[in-house]
């Protein structure tokens, strides 16, 4: 167990370094961020010349996907210590999009420091967390998107079954979603084979289910005994194919895809656990004969769905 854990920490460390490395690319620029609805602030490493900084012709900003549409700048403010410039735009910025800002011939310390091109993005970890919580609770796949219901009603009779199914599902979900994301971004999209996405995604799902099945059977028979029965059911769950399709539609990057996959998996686990807690009590309740079994389960799920509607429209960051 120990070597696995230490290598996991090494991988996590690598990911953190990669994420932190995505800052501004010029040595004279310390940082940048969105401010308010229509402002971008740029922090320089030292004081810049006021006459240069106040000239709008020295800046060019556009959204990353549309380099042709330059966003018009209405005013420029320089802080008293001459290190921070605030660009105010005429229109509100779409902060979900990464913005590219060109800063031409930075004049400081009496000489030109060269041109800087930088990417301005939203506070990243907050954004990732909002994707995670969004998929988990606010837009719960079971109660607000009505996906994965067959498996949901089939395995929510007992808490132990529900937890087993939820964990197995989360693992397969993350593995297959990451593979699907990779295939879509690096094989299907460059080769213009988008129309094959359904075949490729479902193929990857059944492949990873088969792989997990075979590996678990050999490596850890005890675990296989506990979770093996749920593996086949994973394929019949719509969520497992819906998540890769969503990733492809929304053009998510690797970190966002990972968060959405984890959120979908854990959200399914949460839904299963809630439902199984209620259904264990329903076993001993006095239900009219016509409603026994599935019909009452559906009505319970309907009440849950109404409760989850309360989360709709909520945004965290």
């Amino acid at each position: 167990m120990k070597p696995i854990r230490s290598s996991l920490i090494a991988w996590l460390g690598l990911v953190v370094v990669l994420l932190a490395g995505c800052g501004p690319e010029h040595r004279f620029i310390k940082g940048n961020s969105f401010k308010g609805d229509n402002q971008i602030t740029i922090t320089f490493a030292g004081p810049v010349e006021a006459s240069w900084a106040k000239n709008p012709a020295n800046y060019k900003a556009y959204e990353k996907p549309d380099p042709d549409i330059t966003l018009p700048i209405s005013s420029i403010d320089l802080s008293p210590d001459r290190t921070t410039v605030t660009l105010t735009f005429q229109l509100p910025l779409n902060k979900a999009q990464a913005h590219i800002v060109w800063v031409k011939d930075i004049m400081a310390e009496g000489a030109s420091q060269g041109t800087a091109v930088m990417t301005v993005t939203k506070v990243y970890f907050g954004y990732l967390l909002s994707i995670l919580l969004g998929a988990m609770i606010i837009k719960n796949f079971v109660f607000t998107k009505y996906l994965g219901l067959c498996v949901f009603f089939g395995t929510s009779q007992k808490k132990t079954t529900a937890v087993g199914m939820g964990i197995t599902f989360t693992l397969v979900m993350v593995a297959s979603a990451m593979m699907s994301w990779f295939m879509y971004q690096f094989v299907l999209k460059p080769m213009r084979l988008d129309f094959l996405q359904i075949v490729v995604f479902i193929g990857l799902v059944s492949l990873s289910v088969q792989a997990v099945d075979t590996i678990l059977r050999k490596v850890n028979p005890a675990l296989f005994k506990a979770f093996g029965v749920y593996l086949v059911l994973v394929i019949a769950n719509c969520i497992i194919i819906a998540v890769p399709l969503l990733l492809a539609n929304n053009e998510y990057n690797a970190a966002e895809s990972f968060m959405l996959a984890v959120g979908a998996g854990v959200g399914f686990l949460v839904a299963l656990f809630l439902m199984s807690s209620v259904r264990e009590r329903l076993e001993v309740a006095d239900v009219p004969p016509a409603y026994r079994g599935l019909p009452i389960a559906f009505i319970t799920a309907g009440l849950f769905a109404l409760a989850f509607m309360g989360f709709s429209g909520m945004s965290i960051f």
Partner: protein
Amino acid sequence: MALTKKTNSQLFFDGILTENPIFRLALSMCPAVGISTNVMNGILLGIAVLFVQVFSSCTISAIKNFIHPRIRIPTYTLTIATWVTVIDLVLAAYVPEAYKAMGIFVKLIVAFAIITMRLEMFAAKNPIIPSFWDAVGMGLGFLFGMVVLGFIRELLGSGTLLGYDVLGSRPLLFFVLPAAGFFTVGFMMAIFNTMEQYFKRMKEKK
């Protein structure tokens, strides 16, 4: 190989009523709850499922002797995925408006349990002709279920049918809410259960 003893017409009607995929077998619930807000959605998705079911049942039934039992499930899913891609592209080309309304659900047909289950239980064991009728029955049963749900929800929720104003008012706005799908399916299942118990008692009396 357990060949079926039922006649083709029995297979056909079983799928529609006694083994109705939505109300009796409780399979493919996602679309039944998710997009049954009006009749038109139900009809279109029902037709799409019918075609996918018929084509993949026939395909599997024709090639069943060449499939290794250990990889049969992946083979089924890939066969279904191929036919779903075909239907998806056809719908997107010919009925773009309705295709948009159904959103991701057309692509999700690939994960509908009903299709895989019919392949596993029936098409993999029987010749092409009975498989065809079984698939048609199941597909029409699904279509019927979707239309019934859409009928109830559209009539009670928005007072219209197929987009035409029928009632002139909106009796129970609640049924337009997405969550009402769960309630409608629950009520319908209870009605089917009551009917079954009633017929059983009638038979016992005779």
